[in-house]
Structures are given as structure tokens and as C-alpha cells.
């Protein structure tokens, strides 16, 4: 499999070179190298750890397909301690880096939460929380400098943007297969509770290279609206894209400083049923793959997004500067509809209802642009984050780091999980009437993603506490949206995109942004897509078609 792919790509490089003796465009130099790789779904099954779930507390409803198990109310019983031996064995300080969306918490030495967790770990972790919005930039720099922390958590969507990521993994991160493969994982029983489908994505270059943070919901995006404010205006929720536009017009009141939308381009693409698998691919009826850029749906979506900008329905601060904070604008009611990840919902509701009486954010029920059957993006098993362990450490040290990850992966219902996510009772959180932890001021200040994002956890949804309606609302939305999930032909195949293709994604998005913002005429789309095909889009297509063929799909 890998030989033929190499030959294919070398062949492509030669044909580019023969077009002009001295011409060497972006495609050429990278095309000489074998770019990208994919696993065989069956092959990687042999590498993944055994799966042994632990149920510490009984959920109110079990997992339904891609929807994780959930607790409508916070469990009443005392949580149990699941790890009895401290992970630390006297090793030196452990450095870690995670993405965090929010204010940077105080660092080691000034943070009682970190101190408490370190105490439980028996080893000092010195965590670094980096702004999630610009994490990719930071990541690119530390990888290039080969200066990585002992434990590095990487958002999965950043991986596709980094050419040669698999080479970086090989050069910088430890091979975890001998430690975790198959039954070896039993030394780390909490890591064994992570689902197999998530582990399958952690295979790079035929070795297990990371610990997954499994996805806890199938949807990458949602469009949230301020239900409390929309109810006052007595407006109807849109059932098609024209109603959506009309609603946007109705909601936008510049003289009051209120605009309808943040940048909602991704959701607009979804409403127009653009394909999404592996960044936007789908199978053509006649065989072969087509990318979203090449579809009529995408063309319409771009035109519609451009209309939103042209009609001034997007908040000007978000148009004017990279620094604009869409979440803040939404919370303060200056933007009424916000495109964000599902994960933003519960924390934002919890935080803002303390400030704004009656604050109620809800995801807009999905619809299709033409009012027909909608398409929902998602349903993949790609983890949200990967945690890598630095290479070149001694066996003992690697094991110590894995024990730390094991501690962090203790499932919901354990004392360890409660500490990692909520800190110390009485200090960082107090119990509400229904036993749910409520963060104190100190808790909100000190607790970020320092430990919660290391090593993953078995996915669950937990309602109750100060967001009693969250879980029923989430379920209602999800049960509706999950019906329209598109199929993913790449499911279970771990794909490392070729570098040339990775690069075209960013440059092409940049050009398309010019169309959406009205700086270039929409008719330029054909030209842009043609450039994309030439610069690596077609190479990406060939590569992905090969990946499917090799897996017999």
C-alpha cells in the first residue's frame, strides 16, 4: 500500500517538473516527498488498547449512538477514590501545555488548585494554558523549534493545518504502543476506559502516539441564539435561509448597538448542506470524491454569507479586527446569534446568568436552506484533543507521565475527576442544593484546562447544578439534529493529509474570505477553486480516493 502511494506521488512530482525545467512551485518541492498517509482500519485495530469501562455512578440515560450517556441531575452519592497509589515517583517537575479558551489562570506557585492536584499526583506539574484561538500558531513554533513540553495536548483540528505533523510526531513524541497496546493498558486502568474508536485516531506512523480526549457530542458547531431577548421581540425561528436572513434584518438595530450575527459562515455552509467529511469531502454519485468548493451548495453558501456581511448584519467589531470577542458580544446582548462549539454552551450559561437575569442561550434548531431535509455535520469519532508525551525520556519517566495521564483520565464519579475539574470542596467549589458543585470566585479564577484536558475521560453529559435545563435542552436539540447526520466515508481511517494539500486549505480560505467580505467579486470563486485544484486540491483528492480504495470503500 505505502509503496504504491509513494510511487504515485513521486510520479506527480515528476510531471510537474517536466512542465518547465526550472519551475518549482509550492507543489513541486513538497511533491518530491511522500506526503500524507492513512491507516487501514483493520490494521490500527491491533494497536489500540483494550477497552474496559468502569461505571462508578449510574447514568439517567445510557449512550445513544453518538450521544454520550448523561445525568439529568447531579449524582447524590459520595464519589469514590479510584487511584490509591500516587502517580509521582519522585520525578522532576513535569511541564504541560493545553489549549484554553478564557483568561489565563495564575501559574504554578500562585495557584491553589494546581497545588492541590499536584499534591494528589505526588509530582509537580507545571501547566501552561495557551489561548485556544491562536493555539495553532504557538504549536507551529514549538514544533519547529523542537521545544515541546513533557505533556502536550493538541486540539485535533490544528493537526490538519500543520504540514509534516506525522514527522513531528515521530521526531518529538514517544511511542506509546509498548506501554498501552492491547492488554498492556491494564497498568493504566483509567486510560482503558477511553473508547476504542477514539484510540484508533491516535495511531501515527503505525504506532500509538497519543492519548485521546474523546468527543462528547457529535456536533462540531451550533448556532446559539439569545432566547431571552428573542422571546421579548416575539419573533419566529427560521425554517429556511430566507427566513434566517429576514430574522437577521429584524434583529439588527445598529442605533441600539445590536447586531444579529457573529461570523456564522460555517453554519451557513451547513444549512446549505455542504459536505463536511474530512474537511468537506463527499462521494460523487458516479464514483470518486468531490470537495465542497466544487459544489453548487458551497457556491450558494458563500453568496449568502457575503450577503450577511454586505447587509451589515454581522457585528462591525468582528468585521474590523481579529481581536473582536464574539463570545463577549453575545453575552452582553450586542450580538444575538453566535456560532460556537457545543462545549461553549454550559459554561457560558452558568457564567452569564449570574450577571444577566434570565440569560438563556439555546441552539437554533437545524434547518436546510431550502426548507427541505437538513444536513448536520459531525458524527465522527475524531477526539477533541490528543495528549502527546515527549520522546527521549527514560522508561521510568515515561511511565510516570502515563500514570499522571491515567490519574487525569479517572471517569466522572471519581474523587480524582472531581478534583481535576472542580478543585477542592469549600475552596474552589461549594455544593448546591442538588449536591452539584458550584464554583467559587477562586475556582473560576484558578481552574482552567490544566488537568481536565490531559489524558481524556470517558464522555458523559452532566446537567443539574446551576444549569438545570441544560441537559434536557441539549438532548432535545441533539435527538433532532442527530437524525440528519451526514455519512462519513472515512470513518475509522486515520488520515494524515499531504503537506501540499494542508497548505492549500489555509491559503484558499484566505481568498474565500475576501469573497465573503465583499472585497472580491463572487465570480472569482471559479478562479480560486481552479487555483486550489492546481496547488494541491487534486493531489488531496487522489490521496483520499486511494485511502478509501485501500480500505475497500
Amino acid at each position, binding site marked *: 500500500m505505502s509503496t504504491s502511494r509513494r510511487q504515485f506521488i513521486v510520479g506527480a512530482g515528476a510531471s510537474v517538473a517536466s512542465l518547465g525545467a526550472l519551475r518549482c512551485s509550492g507543489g513541486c518541492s513538497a511533491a518530491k516527498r511522500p506526503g500524507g498517509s492513512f491507516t487501514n482500519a483493520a490494521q490500527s485495530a491491533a494497536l489500540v488498547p483494550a477497552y474496559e469501562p468502569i461505571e462508578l455512578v449510574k447514568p439517567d440515560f445510557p449512550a445513544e449512538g453518538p450521544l454520550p450517556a448523561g445525568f439529568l441531575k447531579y449524582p447524590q452519592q459520595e464519589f469514590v477514590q479510584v487511584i490509591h497509589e500516587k502517580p509521582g515517583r519522585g520525578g522532576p517537575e513535569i511541564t504541560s501545555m493545553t489549549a484554553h479558551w478564557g483568561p489565563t489562570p495564575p501559574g504554578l506557585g500562585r495557584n491553589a488548585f494546581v497545588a492541590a492536584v499536584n499534591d494528589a499526583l505526588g509530582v509537580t506539574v507545571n501547566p501552561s494554558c495557551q489561548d485556544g484561538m491562536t493555539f495553532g500558531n504557538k504549536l507551529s513554533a514549538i514544533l519547529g523549534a*523542537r521545544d515541546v513540553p513533557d505533556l502536550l495536548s493538541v486540539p485535533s483540528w490544528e493537526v490538519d493545518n500543520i504540514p509534516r505533523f506525522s514527522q513531528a510526531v*515521530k521526531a518529538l513524541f514517544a511511542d506509546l504502543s509498548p506501554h498501552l497496546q492491547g492488554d498492556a493498558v491494564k497498568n493504566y486502568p483509567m486510560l482503558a476506559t477511553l473508547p476504542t474508536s477514539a484510540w484508533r485516531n491516535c495511531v501515527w506512523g503505525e504506532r500509538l502516539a497519543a492519548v485521546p480526549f474523546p468527543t462528547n457530542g457529535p456536533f462540531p458547531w451550533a448556532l446559539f441564539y439569545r432566547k431571552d431577548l428573542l422571546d421579548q421581540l416575539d419573533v419566529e425561528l427560521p425554517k429556511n435561509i430566507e427566513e434566517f436572513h429576514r430574522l437577521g434584518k429584524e434583529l439588527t438595530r445598529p442605533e441600539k448597538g445590536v447586531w444579529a450575527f457573529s461570523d456564522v459562515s460555517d453554519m451557513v455552509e451547513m444549512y446549505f448542506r455542504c459536505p463536511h467529511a474530512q474537511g468537506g469531502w463527499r462521494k460523487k454519485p458516479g464514483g470518486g470524491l468531490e470537495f465542497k468548493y466544487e459544489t453548487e451548495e458551497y457556491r450558494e453558501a458563500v453568496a449568502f454569507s457575503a450577503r450577511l456581511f454586505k447587509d451589515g448584519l454581522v457585528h462591525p467589531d468582528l468585521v474590523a479586527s481579529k481581536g473582536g470577542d464574539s463570545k463577549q458580544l453575545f453575552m452582553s446582548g450586542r450580538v444575538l446569534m453566535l456560532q460556537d462549539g457545543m462545549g461553549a454552551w454550559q459554561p457560558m450559561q452558568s457564567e452569564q446568568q449570574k450577571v444577566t437575569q434570565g440569560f438563556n442561550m439555546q441552539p437554533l434548531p437545524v434547518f436546510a436552506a431550502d426548507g427541505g431535509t437538513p444536513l448536520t455535520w459531525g458524527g465522527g469519532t475524531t477526539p477533541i484533543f490528543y495528549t502527546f508525551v515527549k520522546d527521549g525520556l527514560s522508561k521510568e519517566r515515561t511511565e510516570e507521565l502515563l500514570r499522571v495521564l491515567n490519574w487525569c483520565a479517572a471517569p466522572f464519579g471519581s474523587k480524582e475527576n472531581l478534583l481535576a475539574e472542580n478543585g477542592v470542596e469549600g475552596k474552589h467549589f461549594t455544593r448546591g442544593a442538588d449536591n452539584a458543585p458550584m464554583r467559587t470566585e477562586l475556582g473560576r479564577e484558578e481552574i482552567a484546562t490544566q488537568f481536565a484536558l490531559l489524558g481524556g475521560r470517558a464522555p458523559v453529559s452532566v446537567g443539574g447544578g446551576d444549569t438545570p435545563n441544560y441537559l434536557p435542552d441539549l438532548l432535545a436539540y441533539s435527538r433532532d439534529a442527530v437524525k440528519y447526520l451526514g455519512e462519513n466515508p472515512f470513518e475509522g481511517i486515520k488520515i494524515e493529509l499531504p503537506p501540499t494539500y494542508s497548505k492549500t486549505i489555509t491559503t484558499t480560505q484566505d481568498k474565500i474570505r475576501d469573497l465573503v467580505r465583499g472585497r472580491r467579486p463572487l465570480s472569482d470563486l471559479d478562479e480560486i477553486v481552479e487555483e486550489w485544484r492546481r496547488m494541491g486540491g487534486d493531489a488531496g483528492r487522489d490521496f483520499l480516493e486511494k485511502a478509501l480504495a485501500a480500505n475497500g470503500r
Partner: protein
Amino acid sequence: MSTPIANSAETPHSRAKAAALPATGSFKARLRRDWPLLAMTAPAVLLLLVFHYVPTLGNVMAFQDYNPFMGKNAFEAFAKSEWIGIGNFLMLFEDPAFWDAFRNTLTITMFQLVFFFPLPILLAILLNGVASAKLRSFIQSVVYLPHFFSWVLVITFFVQMLGGAGLLAQELRGHGLEPWEIMSNPDAFIVLVTAEAVWKDVGWGSIVFLAALAAIDPTLYEAAAVDGATRWRRLWHITLPGIRPVILLLLILRLGDALSVGFEQYLLQREAVGRQAAEVLDTYVYYQAILPQQWGLGAAAGLFKAVVGLVLILSANRLAHAMGEQGVYSKS
């Protein structure tokens, strides 16, 4: 700050005297005599070595398809990365986006040379004319302050004042007027960035000129005033010639930096007005080389910038000599 200025204003005569100090004795004797001086410069030399000369060696990656993940460490990565000759430069010069960035950078430099460069001089002359020392130091504090704000802050401030939801726009809407697009207008971007730069740095830029003005002998003014010269004549015949060497010096340095117009300011506003208007060489390197990890390409762009800068400095310096000024340095 004022010492190098005073030096550059020295007469050739005094410089010649300094150079003529006899280099007597053997190396050892000179070492014994000069070691405190050497010790004092050592930290600066070390700093220069570690942070300038050693990283400069990294420029070899401009001729490589540099792959940081080859080998066991950064040195092996250099040794094992493939040599591709001028491949990176060809790639750079064939990329229309590079030439867009190049053109934008030069246009902005030229524009700012005309509309920004003279402003600190004017401000310095104005400040110099303020008689009350108290008032002058107050004004100085006020105009220096913005220099210490980060670009993020400056741009947020501009967005809050002039943006589509900013103070001005809301005020206009309050009066039933349609606000004017300032922060996201690609055509007026060059004016906007210059205005921002002026707001931030005009005070800071005037410091050097103020120092130069202070070095002008006040008796010249008195003599001219006695001879009946008006304010304008004094400005024209005493003040401007007095600070001419400094103006030229800064102009030459600015020209050497012609291909750098700043980075954060453009990075932050690039999305608002688009690549076509806001891409300068530094953001080009960031988006096309650093983010997609094309290190060789980035190094090639940096080297290109350096060579152009060197050529500009040398020619501007030569021009300064031709005009009878010292310029940045002179052979002798």
C-alpha cells in the same frame, strides 16, 4: 540618547584627533591598558553574538528545504535537510502574493516617509518653542505615553472610536446619518495605519530631534535676533541646518528599514481589510512561511529583505556624503 547625537555632530577635526591616539606598545601592553574597556563591552559583544550572529547562521535554511524534524536535534536537522539551491527564492519570486506584499510594503513606507517622517520634527520644533518648562514636560509626557501602548490596545482603541459600532458611528447614527466605513475600508487602509502610527509614535519620534535642538548654540539665535532675523528666518537658517545631520541620519536608517513597516499592526487588521491591502512582507512571511512551516521560504524572504535594506542604506549613505553630510558612517 544624546551622546551619539553629540558625537555625530562633532567636527571631523575632533574625530581625527581621537583616531590619532597612538596604538603604542605590544598587544600585551595594550591589553593591560585597555582591559577595563574590553570588559565593559564584553556583555554587549556576547549579546550580539548570541542573539544576532549565531541566529544569522540559520539563514542557510534559505537554501534548504528545511525540515526541523530530521535527525535528533536542530543541528542534525540543518545537516540533514535537503539542499535545494535557490529553489526557495524561485518559489518566492514566482508567488504573486509575495509581490503584492512587496508592493504594499514599499507603498506604505513611501507614504509614511512623506506623511509621518516630518511630523516628529515639527512637533519637536513646536515643543522647543514652548517657553514654560512645566507645560513642556507635561505635553511631552502626554505625547510620549501612547508609544508604550501595545498595538492590540491601540487598534482596540481605534475600533472603539472609529469602528462600525464605535463612538463616532453611533453618534452619527444617533443623528440619523449613515456612518462612514473607516476600519474596514481597504482603499483607505494606508491612511488609517499611518494615522495609527502617528498617534502612537509621533511623540516618541520627536525625542531625538529635541535632543538635537538642545545642542544648537543659543547664542546663534540671540545674534540672529539682534540682526533682526524673523522667527521664520531663524528657523530656516539656524534650527533646520542645526538638526540636518540628525534628520539625514534617521532618514537613512529608515530607508534601510524600508521593507519593515511593523507586524502586529498589520496582522491584527489584515482580516478587516483583506490580504490585498494589508499584506506586508512580515505578515506574508508569517502566513506563507511560519504557519505552514515553510521555514526555508521564510528565511529566503528575510534574506531578500536584508539585502534590499543593505543596498538602500549604502546608497543613501553615499548620497549623504555627496551632500556633504556624515551619514551613518564614513570610511576614513
